[in-house]
């Protein structure tokens, strides 16, 4: 599940997981930048605002490699459905928005398992900002792109930085065939579409299994 902050993807992911579990599918959740391995470095770097676009990119790739090994590949091998809150596309979008070479980041993540389905929750920047501010979320330094020094105002910086991230996501939709969900719609509307996308996929998998046993 991909999308900028305030796109609602985490809410959608939670509802999807409930539905899949209720239907008897074993589900495993994994979240961007959550491994213990790089936590200390990320924390230090963020606290001191010491991360450069390159070290930011590499730390996230390290986190991803760690989770791939421990949290993504084993559940896949065990036949579970892995639901990833953000995947390599997040790196492609954010790192490019920070000025890292697009080709370099793509090759960096070439060790990643290609997802069976990648959904992008597309939301206009205004909607995303409204949602985050309504929740009284304090915009974080790196999420708001304050490290780029484009604006000292967090909201203004967020708009500029995430605007660039949105542009990058638009490239990715075409390049990687991401399924787009209009994330300005109602929660139930989006969830209905998401479940449809996922169930199509599960059906295909079932057909394959039937074919094999035939």
């Amino acid at each position, binding site marked *: 599940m991909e999308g900028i902050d305030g796109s609602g993807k985490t809410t959608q992911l939670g509802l999807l997981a409930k539905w899949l579990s209720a239907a008897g599918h074993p589900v495993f959740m994994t979240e961007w930048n959550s491994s213990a*391995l790089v936590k200390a470095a990320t924390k230090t770097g963020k606290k001191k605002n010491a991360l450069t676009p390159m070290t930011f990119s*590499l730390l996230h790739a390290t986190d991803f490699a760690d989770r791939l090994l421990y949290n993504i590949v084993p559940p896949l091998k065990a036949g579970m459905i892995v639901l990833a809150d953000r995947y390599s596309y997040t790196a492609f979008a954010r790192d490019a928005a920070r000025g890292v070479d697009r080709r*370099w980041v793509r090759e960096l993540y070439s060790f990643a398992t290609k997802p069976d389905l990648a959904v992008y929750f597309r939301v206009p920047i205004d909607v995303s900002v409204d949602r985050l501010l309504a929740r009284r979320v304090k915009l974080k330094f790196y999420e708001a792109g304050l490290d780029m020094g484009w604006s000292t105002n967090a909201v203004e910086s967020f708009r500029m930085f995430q605007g660039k991230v949105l542009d990058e996501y638009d490239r990715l939709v075409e390049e990687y065939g991401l399924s787009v969900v209009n994330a300005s719609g109602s929660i139930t509307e989006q969830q209905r579409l998401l479940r449809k996308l996922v169930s199509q996929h599960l059906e295909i998998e079932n057909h394959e299994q039937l074919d094999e046993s035939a």
Partner: protein
Amino acid sequence: MSNSTNLPEPTETGRAGHYYSYGIPYLPIDNYPGKLIAIEGTDGVGRSTQIRLLREWLEVQGYGVIETGWTRSELMQPTIEVAKGSNTLNKLTFVLLYATDFADRLEKEIIPALKAGFIVLSDRYIFTALARAGVRGVDRAWVRNLYGFGISPHLVFYLRIDEKTLIRRVLQSRGMDYWESGMDLKLGDDIYESFRAYQRALLKEYTSMSEEFGFRVLDARRKVEVIQDELRRQIAAFLAESDVPAAAAVRAE
């Protein structure tokens, strides 16, 4: 500048003092006055002694010198230490943690120093990472792309020793540890056998990189002074033909 041949204009990419490959787009390298000199080699070849002596010699001549070493970044050193102790690293995270450390030092130490006209003496360089990754079976093209943001040094000296000497020197100095014995490769339970196989594989990796990256190979089994003389002779020749005049030479005129 005469250019009468039909050869295509060489690109900056990969040339000494420039990025190896894609580089860091937001930090364009523009004919910086500084020079980057890497001293490579396995453990026990006396890199730090040679660097200390080189620094002294260069500073006497009036060159500004900055040293940088592997895993010495402020950002990553604690994490790397913890990770090495926890045995949860796999070959990819192992490579990526070191690459992060290198990126941090490159952006915060090496590039600013080159820009300011320093001679940067690097105790180990990306070749250490490439060798360790190679031994662990990490895809060669992938790890070379990963380090494509590195700057190609002006000079790379590879201090080479043979397997036997290497093993004795490491045992004498700090003994075998888990990582330097390649125990993560699960070559066997016998730490000495694993250590030997690992160090042999590392030497092979360095040899295979000699040509690829234009190493100047020095026999590191010789006396410290002999190696130092050789290093100084080659560095002096390089500096003489490049545009960095020594302060001492200027004063003598």
